[in-house]
């Protein structure tokens, strides 16, 4: 049995000389969000000028007043990001190290910058990055949600009445893209970055600078994506199909750049989380004792690293098609519109599971705690996650079932797509087995975990219809698809996300969220969510295509029902915001260290966690789900006797024989 250990001395990278502290500048010169903002503005101006300078012969081909130089806009964005990062001080340590100067370490940084200002800086502290991500992703989520309200307002009437067709498509595209960009990171960003090091018994992550960079790219992507509204929006929805995206106005540049930037962000986040999980586990944290949430983060991280580069490539090709007059996606000039669809979905379908696996992880983490039972089939759950992750790379062509590309391959892709329901079924098996003769505690997080399974059931079943080519002939491109992926993404991932917030906020902030308001939030959200998206299955089957502002008059009643439910769903989010703000800012009810009597390693340390996470690197003694086993060892020894880290691990090694649960 190999135990991966990291001596504490190995956790401090960089060739720092002892005693070398960088001198502090006055506060307004220290890199933070305000210097980044100045950098971004200057960067955009330089880039825009450079773009116009590089293309002196540019003529507005469309002849319209709004047509402007795509090269200038794209370079503007590129330099905006560069200026933003320089202003943040992302490159400072790099330059220091190249010049042979000492670079500040995490501990020194904590002493130098205290209080709230840490949350507005490029920081090495994974817990700060986690909070930054949480706030950032909530901003993304609520912006996308407001755009959804606008869509549903337009669809109150079968002809167009509130938004013009242009504005409608802008809103649809922004909603889809914003949500998809945010969903990739919504759990790995906040919970993954914050909790994974604590769950595996580490004081830090592997690449704190990459981690911080991955967060600080997301505000840029947000602003750039929204700036599309100023440029006339993009008419393609979140998929950005060429050649429509080549033909579109300059708002399209914002889409391609922002989405590509988000791709880079998740690649960095993925690398960091993978290496952290593999290399920074505490002694005794064997693979068989890893919490399911960490397994889900590992698989998600692999999907990030393997799928997102294809997205970045696709977006890059769109940008060059639009600026440098390449023709990757233009049929008449030797390109292919199929190429874009393949590139996009080669990323897009693994992405679908990027949006599912973290949800699996959270519910698998919550179920044992609130059923007071060990997880049923730990290995099956981990295998299910890996099965889903691997298969997700072999199914993307089902998005092209109607497109006419290699039609003889459709039975194969039908098979691979349906095969995914086997590992997904593992997760359901694990859940149902865990419920067997349990002592269920119906807390707010548990309610969300239960709703996850109900919603994901409908999402999964409708997915089987979509994977079947004859049934897909009717369902493809209709509201049925739209209802399907809202069931899996919102009904699955977002319910798990809220469950995670209610579950871990006491740990993260040391503050309990109001449980009564939490229950009201849950029930309003669960009922209105189903009442919004269940009728859309019918709407789609009855012939309403996606992304239309006009629909058949006989579908008006259903659409109005859906719109009103959607507004109420928005109201349920207001309940959450009210609860979140009041609980964390006004009421501030102290949470006990371990309010859920959970065995997870993160619950064994004080709430909120101390800056160091652990005073000593803990020695993990047992699996995290040994509920109900009177002979189970405590999950970890937080104060291991001296010398344990150095290698005298006999105690931990012997203990594994007495905790067979982790082998189940």
């Amino acid at each position, binding site marked *: 049995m190999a135990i991966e250990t990291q001596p504490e001395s190995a956790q401090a990278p960089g060739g720092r000389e002892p005693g070398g502290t960088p001198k502090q500048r006055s506060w307004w010169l220290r890199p933070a969000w305000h210097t980044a903002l100045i950098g971004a503005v200057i960067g955009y101006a330089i880039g825009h000028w450079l773009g116009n300078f590089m293309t002196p012969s540019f003529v507005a081909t*469309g*002849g*319209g*007043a709004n047509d402007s130089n795509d090269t200038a806009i794209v370079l503007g964005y590129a330099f905006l990001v560069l200026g933003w990062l320089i202003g943040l001080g992302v490159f400072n340590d790099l330059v220091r190290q190249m010049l042979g100067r000492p670079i500040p370490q995490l501990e020194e940084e904590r002493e130098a910058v205290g209080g709230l200002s840490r949350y507005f800086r490029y920081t090495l502290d994974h817990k700060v990055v986690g909070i930054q991500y949480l706030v950032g992703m909530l901003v993304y989520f609520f912006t996308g949600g407001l755009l959804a309200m606008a869509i549903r307002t337009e669809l109150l009437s079968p002809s167009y009445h509130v938004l013009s*067709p242009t504005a*409608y*498509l802008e809103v649809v595209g922004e909603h889809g893209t914003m949500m998809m960009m945010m969903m990739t990171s919504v759990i790995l960003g906040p919970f993954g970055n914050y909790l994974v090091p604590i769950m595996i018994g580490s004081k830090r992550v592997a690449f704190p600078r990459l981690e911080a960079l991955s967060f600080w790219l997301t505000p840029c992507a947000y602003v750039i994506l929204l700036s599309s509204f100023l440029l006339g929006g993009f*008419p*393609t*929805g979140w998929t950005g*199909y060429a*050649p429509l995206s080549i*033909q579109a*106005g300059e708002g399209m540049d914002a889409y391609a750049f922002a989405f590509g930037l988000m791709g880079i962000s998740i690649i960095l986040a993925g690398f960091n989380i993978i290496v952290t999980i593999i290399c920074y586990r505490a002694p005794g944290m064997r693979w068989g004792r890893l919490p399911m949430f960490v397994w889900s983060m590992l698989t998600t991280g692999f999907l990030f690293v393997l799928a997102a580069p294809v997205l970045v490539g696709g977006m890059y090709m769109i940008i060059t098609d639009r600026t440098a007059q390449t023709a990757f996606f233009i*049929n*008449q000039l030797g390109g292919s*519109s199929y190429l874009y669809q393949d590139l996009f979905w080669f990323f897009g379908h693994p992405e679908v599971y990027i949006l599912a696996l973290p949800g699996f992880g959270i519910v698998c983490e919550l179920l044992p705690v609130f059923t*007071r*039972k*060990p997880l049923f*089939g730990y290995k*099956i759950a981990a295998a299910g996650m890996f099965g889903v992750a691997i298969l997700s790379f072999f199914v993307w062509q089902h998005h092209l079932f*109607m*497109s*006419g590309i290699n*039609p003889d391959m459709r*039975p194969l892709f*039908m*098979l691979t797509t*349906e095969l995914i329901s*086997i590992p997904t079924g*593992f997760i359901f*098996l694990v859940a*149902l*087995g865990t419920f*067997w*003769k*349990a*002592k*269920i505690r*119906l807390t707010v997080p548990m309610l969300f975990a239960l709703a996850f399974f*109900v919603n994901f059931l409908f999402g999964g079943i409708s997915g089987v*219809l979509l994977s*079947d*080519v*004859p*049934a897909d*002939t*009717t369902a493809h*491109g209709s509201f049925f698809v739209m209802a399907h992926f809202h069931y899996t993404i919102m009904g699955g991932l977002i319910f798990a996300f809220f469950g995670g917030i209610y579950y871990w906020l006491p740990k993260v902030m040391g503050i309990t969220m109001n449980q009564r308001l939490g229950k009201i939030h849950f029930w309003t959200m669960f009922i209105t969510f189903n009442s919004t998206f269940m009728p859309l299955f019918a709407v789609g*089957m009855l*012939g309403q295509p*996606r*992304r*239309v502002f006009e629909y058949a008059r006989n579908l008006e009643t259903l659409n109005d029902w859906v719109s009103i439910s959607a507004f109420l769903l928005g109201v349920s989010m207001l309940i959450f915001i009210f609860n979140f703000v009041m609980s964390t800012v006004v009421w501030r009810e102290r949470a006990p260290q371990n309010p859920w*009597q959970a065995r997870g390693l993160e619950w064994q340390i004080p709430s909120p966690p101390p800056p160091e996470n652990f005073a000593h690197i803990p020695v993990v003694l047992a699996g995290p789900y*040994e509920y*109900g086993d009177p002979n189970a060892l405590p999950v970890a020894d937080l104060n291991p006797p001296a010398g344990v880290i150095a290698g005298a691990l006999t105690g931990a090694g012997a203990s594994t024989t007495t905790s067979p*649960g982790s082998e*189940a």
Partner: protein
Amino acid sequence: MAAEAGPAPAGSKGVRRDGLWLLVTWIVLSIIGCLLVALVWGPHIPPGDASNTAASQQVDITVLATIATPVVIGILLYLGWALTFWRQKPGDETDAAPIHGNTRISAIWITATSAIVLALAVYGTVELIAPAGAGAGQGPQPIFQRGMPPATSDTSWTPGTNNILQVQVIGQQWAWTFRYPQFGGFETTDLLIPLNTPVRFNVTSLDVIHSFWAYQLGVKADANPGVNNVTFTVPKQAGQFVVRCAELCGIWHGAMYDYGKVVPVAAFMTWAHATEIQLAALTKILPPYALTYDPTVIANVGKVNEELGLTSAGGGYYNPADPEQP
């Protein structure tokens, strides 16, 4: 399949035999549910039975829905059961009995889901091949042509011969036009097809990707620029059907709908011959019939659209200065 998932309480004689009760309830509810779905709901499931492809899809969706019914019932029943009977008793702070897994139950579950999934894939393939591609676009060289006559002549068609009727569907922002190569290649905005006659749609686009969705016929094929996407159907009921664009194609995507008609063969022939003569002048300025077109080399694009009475800027790019008023 779902309800028996709980591990059998090995040896323990509980007061309430959860497994047995769950199994019985699940089987009873599933039989009722399956019968309701297959027999009561089935005949009303979209897209109806106005063509052979639509009918096969209706059967296909009914079969899938019937198979899904026990799964949904099982899982919801189990969750409901768990919430009813396996709740924490007030004041009971103890943990439940530790069950780490059950190999037999897991093996049954995995075997059952794998068997269902493989059966579904086989069934889906059969349903795809049997009705000549189930109405889905098959690209330029359709391989699923079971029961369809071959395309022996591109220039003439008479009912009842071993030659399939071809209709070219051309998508452009934001209108559909239809060309009948076997009737002199005239192009019109009306879509008429004869009843009980195999039809081959050749779908293509002049600009961006559209998707030709004849809802009641159960036909859907992407219209890709520079690609001929073929699909087949045999209309079985006379009457109107809706044609919508099912792939986002720009601003007026939502307004890109049309109506087609299925008419008796005699009426179709009368209409086709009359339209061929009526549109002879327009056919002359059209580019010769081809499976795909390059809009950048088509002369008279504007004139053709004017003649066809298209209100859109179809065939060329819209005016970027004012795209809402093409």
